């Protein structure tokens, strides 16, 4: 346990000095401020909770941003250390590879959680400043915070997996960008194409709901857009959220981090530095 915390402590120090903390926080803060201020405009006429509107716009954004931050924090973790030659020395110390991985994971998760907390904190603050604290329901905000962390954890794990499988950081960075593109853009486009081609047949009714929650980014999006009236504000396949229950979405978001981290651990064990 001491070893894990020592790794975490060191990684946090490195993340701070590398400006990863600052970069993540600024990214999240910038986008949440803009979306909160811009998204607030129509809420008055629609009579919807302004915080809910903000959460919806931020969810749409987080689907892109959080996997990106997760992958950027993690792709270098193993390949980079192997390349720089710092990994060989670490592995001669009396701690397991699992401990190294978990230590790094905790540090990166802290960075991510901090960035999300700052972003959502700003959202809450701005909304209260504009509309007052009364009549706001904070549950969607808290749900968004927790699921953002789960989504980030999943993509951290995927990043470590790539980092352990690939020897060069350059290649690892390329692969994680492709993964990001597939998960948050191409996957949905593919599903949409299949839906159109299937035209309400077997695929649409049976396979599609499962495929939709199988992608953690989609599970995250569906889970955080519960109210159909608000969901309709969002375009695309968000409207089909009712087709898969929230249980599937939650399971997807919980299983992905564990699965990805486990696979990364297995891949890391095969690395000969």
């Amino acid at each position, binding site marked *: 346990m001491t070893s894990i915390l*020592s790794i975490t*402590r060191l990684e946090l120090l*490195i993340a701070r*000095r590398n400006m990863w903390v600052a970069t993540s926080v600024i990214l999240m803060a910038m986008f949440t401020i803009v979306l909160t201020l811009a998204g607030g405009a129509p809420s008055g006429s629609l009579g919807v909770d302004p915080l809910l509107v903000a959460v919806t716009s931020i969810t749409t954004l987080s689907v892109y941003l959080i996997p990106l931050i997760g992958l950027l924090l993690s792709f270098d973790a193993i390949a980079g250390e192997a390349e*720089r030659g*710092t990994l*060989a020395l670490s592995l*001669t110390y009396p701690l397991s590879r699992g401990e190294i991985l978990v230590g790094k994971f905790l540090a990166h998760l802290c960075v991510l959680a901090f960035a999300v907390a700052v972003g959502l904190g700003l959202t809450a603050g701005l909304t209260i400043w504009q509309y007052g604290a009364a009549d706001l329901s904070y549950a969607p905000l808290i749900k968004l915070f927790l699921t953002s962390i789960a989504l980030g954890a999943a993509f951290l794990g995927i990043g470590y997996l790539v980092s352990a499988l690939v020897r060069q950081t350059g290649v690892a960075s390329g692969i994680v960008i492709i993964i990001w593109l597939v998960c948050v853009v191409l996957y949905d486009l593919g599903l949409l194409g299949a839906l159109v081609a299937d035209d309400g047949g077997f695929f649409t009714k049976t396979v599609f709901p499962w495929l939709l929650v199988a992608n953690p980014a989609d599970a995250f999006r569906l889970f955080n857009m519960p109210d159909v009236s608000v969901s309709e504000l969002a375009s695309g396949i968000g409207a089909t959220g009712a087709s898969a229950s929230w249980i599937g979405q939650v399971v997807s978001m919980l299983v992905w981090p564990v699965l990805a981290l486990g696979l990364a651990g297995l891949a890391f064990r095969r690395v000969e530095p």
Partner: protein
Amino acid sequence: MTALSIQNVTKSYGDLRAVHEVSLGIEAGERIALLGHNGAGKTTLMRMILGLATISSGSIRVLGAAPGTRSARKVIGFLPESVAFHGNLTGREQLQHFARLKSVPLRKADDLLDRVGLSHAADRKIRTYSKGMRQRIGLAQALLGTPKLALLDEPTSGLDPISRHEFYDIVDDLSAAGTAVLLSSHALTELETRTDRIAIMSSGHLLANDSLANLRQQARLPIRLDVTTSGESADHVANHLGGERSNGRSVSLTCQQEEKVSVLGRITGLGDLIKDIDVTPASLEDLYRHYSVNPEDRK
């Protein structure tokens, strides 16, 4: 207990045999120098001892434990060749981190920074360090927790002569405290007086493993005597001793160890004709060349 025992260890990468049937033992407090060209298998051997590379056949025991196990890793201090650290950390942060991993009090890390002469730069980022300073941090981390076995891969590369001297002082202290030291090196001259045993590797084979004196005896490399004559009597002296005149005033000749005393007697018998004598035994370089260049000649 034997600090390190290596028995018939082979490492193959496909058809390539990086290490071939090597056996070697080190007792507590012994200092062994592992010599060899680049690619001779020194680093591969160390990586197997550390558990970083798998062993194709044979066995290695570190104080009775298999390489890479927690108990083996606890007792090993390792300094990698061209050691690298994260540039954004300070020397103190990096060393304290390693101290935590080895469950050593943080105070020890500060003591070691002092010991390797880095206390003045301890709070600067490692990015700003020279190669020699990084090497010192590497040495300091290898000393954490007084290891039972120290593996030092090319420890003096990048160090200036004075630092090298200080480095070997630290190695002496380590071995005096009972640590078995295995170090690999190219810089041969500095090893002569600083190690108990020399092991020579070439293309994966262990070609020699003995004390310097015994290696000299086995190799039967000639001792070189340089005689300075007084006046212009070099020709006469050269004829008398059977040596070769190297210039007007000096003669050089070679002999085997057992002839040394009688040859010296003949030289001193020439009395006033002789001004000075230099006796040079085969250097480590000569030995190294002897053992590593023509391995098949001696089999």
